[in-house]
């Protein structure tokens, strides 16, 4: 279980508990947090669950696979150091306190 803070582009914060094994995307979906669309449901096929993660978390979150990296290249205002697709981040206890910020829009 991890407490995750999702910050909308407008600044609105949503703090929710997300169970281990789910993805950060599913945490947003299950709590109806706007700004993460995830149309493909987590198949790494649509690039509509893009967020920015502070680089300080990089060590605790497994790195990007090539597919995610390539998709993110075409997300809205990607940032090589901070952009992630939330469907590719599995929640563990290590992610307790994670803060993700949403871009102005998904592609």
């Amino acid at each position, binding site marked *: 279980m991890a407490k995750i803070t999702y910050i909308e582009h407008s600044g609105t914060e949503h703090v929710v508990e997300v169970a281990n094994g789910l993805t950060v995307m599913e945490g947003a979906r299950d709590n109806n947090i706007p700004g993460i669309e995830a*149309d493909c449901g987590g198949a790494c096929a649509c690039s509509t669950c893009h967020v920015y993660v502070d680089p300080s978390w990089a060590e605790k979150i497994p790195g990007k696979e090539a*597919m995610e990296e390539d998709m993110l290249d075409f997300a809205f205002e990607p940032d090589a150091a901070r952009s992630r697709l939330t469907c590719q981040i599995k929640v563990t206890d290590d992610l307790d306190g994670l803060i993700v910020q949403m871009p102005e829009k998904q592609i």
Partner: protein
Amino acid sequence: MSHIIVVGAGQAGSSMVVKLRNLGFEGKITLVGEEPVPPYQRPPLSKKYLLGEMALERLYLRPEQFYSDHNIELKLGNPVTAIDADAKTITVGGETLTYDQLAITTGSTPRQLPAAIGGTLEGVHVVRTLADVDAMANDVKDGAKALIVGGGYIGLEAAAVARKMGVAVTVIEMANRILQRVAAPETSDYFRELHAQNDVTILEKTGLTRLTGEGRVSGAELSDGTMLAVDFAIVGVGVTPNHSLAEMAGATLDNGIAVNEFGQTSDPTIWSAGDCASFPYQGNRIRLESVQNAIDQAEQIAANMLGEPTAYVPKPWFWSDQYDTKLQIAGLNTGYDQTVVRKGDKEGSQSVWYFKGDQLLAVDAMNDPRPYMIGKRMIEAGKSPTPAQVGDPATDLKALM
């Protein structure tokens, strides 16, 4: 208080009710579903769910609790048995409900093989619902022999998963090549090769004469006279739109439930979205069987129910997962007269670009997300690279966006 009823609790129905609430609709919402479970994602059913890598609850598009939390009444487990468009009522589970606006998002039904050729034997499966996939779970096991009827995306994805489970798989396709209806020969070639590498036997230009067996399927006779031993069969030969409710309501049908650009049927208080709805597109009328269409059309209709209507213009995209290959498709290739193949940076990655004249229509990308994203952006922006640019490996496609 205004009451919106949505019949059909799949991707489109779920997207619509969520959007209605997120747009601030405060009236009554009822979502009616024939299946006994809350709306769920279908694409993972025959893949991660069947493989046991994804539990049922994770398939749900929203947790069950979500609906009551948002004052959305879920009526599950019963079909709608009657509709009276004049009185604006539907009957479900013996109960009559009155609507102000109704949406029909009843999806589609897989075509089955006729009983006369063994279509109703035990062990003959289709892939659509949770129940369909639960029914095949016991059959898809190491050492079993499967016949897959139909070399479209459904059949090929099923073949890939069955191979992963150790099933010996034969795919038969009546047309000249697999994926003939939906893709160019180059894409068919890619997937034929991929399945060959994974020891799937693909027989093109080969039909099914009959499935045989006493009660349960045990064999198949193919159109070339070959007899196969079969432990189970999966039939993926397309779907038909579920339009009976609209028909009962007296709404116009035309390759499914005919809607206008706003999503309204010939009865302006009845709307329709998703697999079951045909809508105007570039001078024609089309139906799209895809997650993208189910979501986007349903969300547009939600907005249109509440305010000034805006036309739904699809931005089609699609994906298919087979083994470790992800196919991503942007656009619609209907009417293409030329294709250009572009090799990707990695082994086995490539994209197929569809043109009509000099206009880009669609891109199929195999393990190659960059051209998919570039193509998608360009198609949506009405831009087009030339076939020569795409064909030249030195072209930096991103610079053309």
